[in-house]
């Protein structure tokens, strides 16, 4: 398969990356495959900031908020009201700052394939701010559990995600108690209820690893949930150094061996669930599930089975080595089809617009309003499944009008004194069609020219 080098360069930057900044396609043209491969590195993706805020800090802030709210309820007095508001505002600003930092990284990074790869995995292991308690933890979660591991072994990524307080809170693992554990027994005598919460166990099976097609049963889910009991967060009453971090609570753990998907796992405390995860990570079902999701994200909503099989084999041959998987994706000819099949999500659209204009977003309020109006509220996917991949999800009539309105408001200032045709060449390279080039050249103002570029069929896709 011979593909024009110019097209390959444009595909490398716009499909695998996050959209071209000025000169990026030119740099990729030298060797488009190597351009992407050079961004794969064992130490993982870039952190969103130098010394990003930690989970422990955020847990303390959340505890302060809870405490203020408790006082307010007890006291129903006058000044506690403000304390609650302030504590809530702290958390809200935290989340906003995290999202802004992450977006600024996406907009400015020269290693956009690496960043897209990280965003894929962050979405694969979704923690959503739609759940209040997790809101201020999404940012630390991405930095601590996802980014360091995205080019490591899948198993390590799975464990990092499943032991992170953000995930443990988000999918309710923290409250899951083995029915026969010492804690449950103790509570029985006081009349308090305690029991399993299957949420995280189920989503690990369904979303993070083997997928529903693997044919596991409800019994498997329940058994896995039992194995996971005890996986939780260190209370704030204990060692202040470890407060808010992952902790295995021995006394909440369900004793005994578990049978999950035909395998027996002897009791081993914390290690019992780790052993399950090791097998889940090594499962051919997981290899397939991860491969089809990757192909769907990077190449097409309905990807070529040949590509999926190529990825699956790579995953199994390397024991779930994600660097190897990324290299396999980059060298797969199916991934380089010149026809763009992916419709950008709102976040991808905005990031690519900012990259194309080399404008760095600084106003979280405006960004949040824009993303929300287009259907992708920051850090708040509607379910643990994460943001959808399918074009139909994002191409609703109202959302397109919203994209148009945003472009119209953004373009005059963003374009400034620059020639929109040059921006178009920079942004799309050989992917710019004559039809759109002509429309841009006929634009009445620079702003209109840029709006046409941003709203063009080829810019809306990748």
């Amino acid at each position, binding site marked *: 398969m011979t593909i024009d080098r110019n097209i390959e360069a444009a595909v490398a930057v716009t499909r695998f990356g996050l959209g071209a900044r000025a000169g990026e396609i030119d740099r990729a043209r030298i060797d488009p495959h190597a351009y992407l491969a050079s961004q794969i590195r064992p130490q993982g993706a870039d952190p969103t900031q130098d010394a990003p805020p930690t989970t422990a800090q955020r847990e303390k802030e959340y505890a302060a908020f809870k405490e203020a709210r408790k006082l307010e309820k007890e006291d129903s007095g006058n000044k506690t009201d403000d304390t609650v508001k302030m504590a809530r505002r702290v958390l809200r600003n935290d989340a906003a700052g995290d999202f802004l930092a992450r977006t600024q990284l996406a907009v400015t990074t020269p290693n956009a394939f690496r960043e897209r790869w990280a965003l894929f995995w962050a979405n694969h292991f979704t923690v959503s701010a739609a759940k209040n308690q997790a809101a201020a933890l999404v940012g630390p979660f991405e930095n601590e559990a996802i980014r360091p591991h995205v080019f490591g072994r899948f198993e390590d990524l799975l464990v990092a995600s499943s032991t992170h307080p953000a995930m443990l809170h988000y999918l309710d693992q923290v409250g899951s108690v083995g029915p026969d554990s010492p804690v449950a027994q103790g509570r029985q005598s006081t009349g308090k209820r305690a029991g399993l919460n299957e949420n995280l166990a189920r989503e690990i099976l369904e979303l993070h690893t083997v997928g529903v097609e693997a044919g596991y049963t409800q019994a498997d889910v329940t058994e896995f949930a039992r194995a996971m009991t005890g996986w939780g967060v260190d209370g704030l009453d204990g060692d202040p150094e470890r407060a808010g971090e992952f902790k295995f609570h021995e006394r909440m753990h369900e004793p005994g061996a578990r049978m999950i998907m035909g395998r027996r796992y002897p009791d081993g405390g914390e290690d019992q669930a780790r052993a399950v995860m090791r097998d889940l990570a090594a499962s051919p079902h997981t290899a397939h599930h991860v491969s089809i999701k990757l192909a769907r994200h990077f190449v097409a909503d309905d990807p070529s089975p040949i590509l999926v099989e190529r990825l699956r084999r790579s995953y199994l041959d390397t024991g779930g080595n994600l660097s190897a998987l990324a290299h396999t994706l980059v060298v797969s000819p199916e991934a380089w089809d010149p026809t763009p099949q992916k419709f950008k999500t709102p976040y991808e659209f905005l990031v690519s617009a900012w990259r194309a204009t080399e404008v760095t977003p600084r106003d979280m309020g405006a960004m949040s309003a824009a993303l929300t109006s287009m259907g992708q509220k920051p850090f708040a996917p509607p379910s643990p499944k994460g943001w959808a991949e399918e074009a139909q999800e994002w191409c609703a009539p109202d959302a*397109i009008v919203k994209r148009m309105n945003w472009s119209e408001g953004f373009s005059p200032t963003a374009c400034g004194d620059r020639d929109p045709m040059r921006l178009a060449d920079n942004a799309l390279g050989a992917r710019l069609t004559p039809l759109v080039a002509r429309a841009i050249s006929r634009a009445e103002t620079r702003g209109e020219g840029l709006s046409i570029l941003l709203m063009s069929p080829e810019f809306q896709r990748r």
Partner: protein
Amino acid sequence: MSNHGFPGRPSRRGALASAFGLGISIQFLGTRAFADADGGLSRRRLVVIICRGGLDGLSLSPPVGDSAYAALRGPIAIGGFGQPGGALKLDGTFGLHPSLTAVHALALKGQARIAPAVATPDRERSHFEAQDVLENGGRVAYGVTSGWLNRALEAMGPSGKVRAMSLGPTAPLVLRGKIETVSWSPGGGQGHDTRLAGILQDLYAHDPLLGPALAGGLATQSMATVVTQEEAAQPASAPAADMMATNAGGKSGGAPQARRMGTMLAAFMTQPAGAQVAAVEMDAFDTHARQGAAEGLLATRLVSLDAFLDGLQAGLSHPAGGGPDAWRDTVVVLATEFGRTARVNGTGGTDHGTASTALLLGGALKTGGIVGDWPTLAQNRLFENRDTAPTLDMRGLFKGVLRDHLGIDRARLDTLVFPDSAQVAPVSGLVV
């Protein structure tokens, strides 16, 4: 549905909410605090209107008395004085487009004049370049990154206050620069530009995903616009004139909203601490096809323009918050980046040209005839055998207004405001 929105402008209700509900007024800090010690200069107001896309001067102020006019223009020629849909008479040669009834009424009072063959120094016929030169006040595009109107504020000396504003989501280049200015636009981008929507619909014609999506989205939105307008057209919230215009049918072209924008701007400028200088942008004058004559695409835009100017004049003459007539201290200058070809093209429109008409209005205007010479449309007088030939440098027109209306001296005009332009003399006799 006959009621189309003014492109890019949302409902009147949105405008009112934005302007009066959110405390916009606090942005225009005291500008005329230093009273009348400067001989009334601080009472003077200037509005600069930039018409983007290349406004066709030969339709804005048709020279129906020019013997070559009708033949060159063919189907888009504006009819002679007294004909149905004919030009509104200014003098023996020139009239105004029949849509410009408010402007014409002002002209009859000596409060509107035309400069029918004016151009910037740019001759490239590129929108982006020509708009740059029009607004940066230099001789070439990209040469200067601030606008001449901002530098004029600089030349007027420090006020320590915000004294200029623009209407629109962003400040146009003409108002950008060292001196702080503000901008205002109604509704925070809830409207949609029908021009961009039209271009995109063409681009999406064969796109199975985007085509139907955009069409559906626009249909829903225009319905929402009508609903909001109907709601806003309550007697309590809409002046009677607006309602009549709305009810007149599809030809109003968003005139009620445009008029409202004019009165809104006037309201901003007549507050006790209102803006002294304002810049306004209008777009969609790039009439390459189906331009029309007395009616049509361009006429629709001119209806809006006329309504905007009418609203501005009314609002300044009778400030909503009381106070003295501000119109008598006002000059409005309207200009475009270039004119259009003298001949009609093959698609019932006109292409990028050179000289066009600038419009001057205001109670502070000195009575008089056309500004600058008329080169005529005789074939041997056309610029490069296609365009109205420029007889007046746009900078001379602006300089005349800035010197005589805002009191900026020649030396500063020649160096700071319009760099390296000593050879371009200010036009005299424009302002009382």
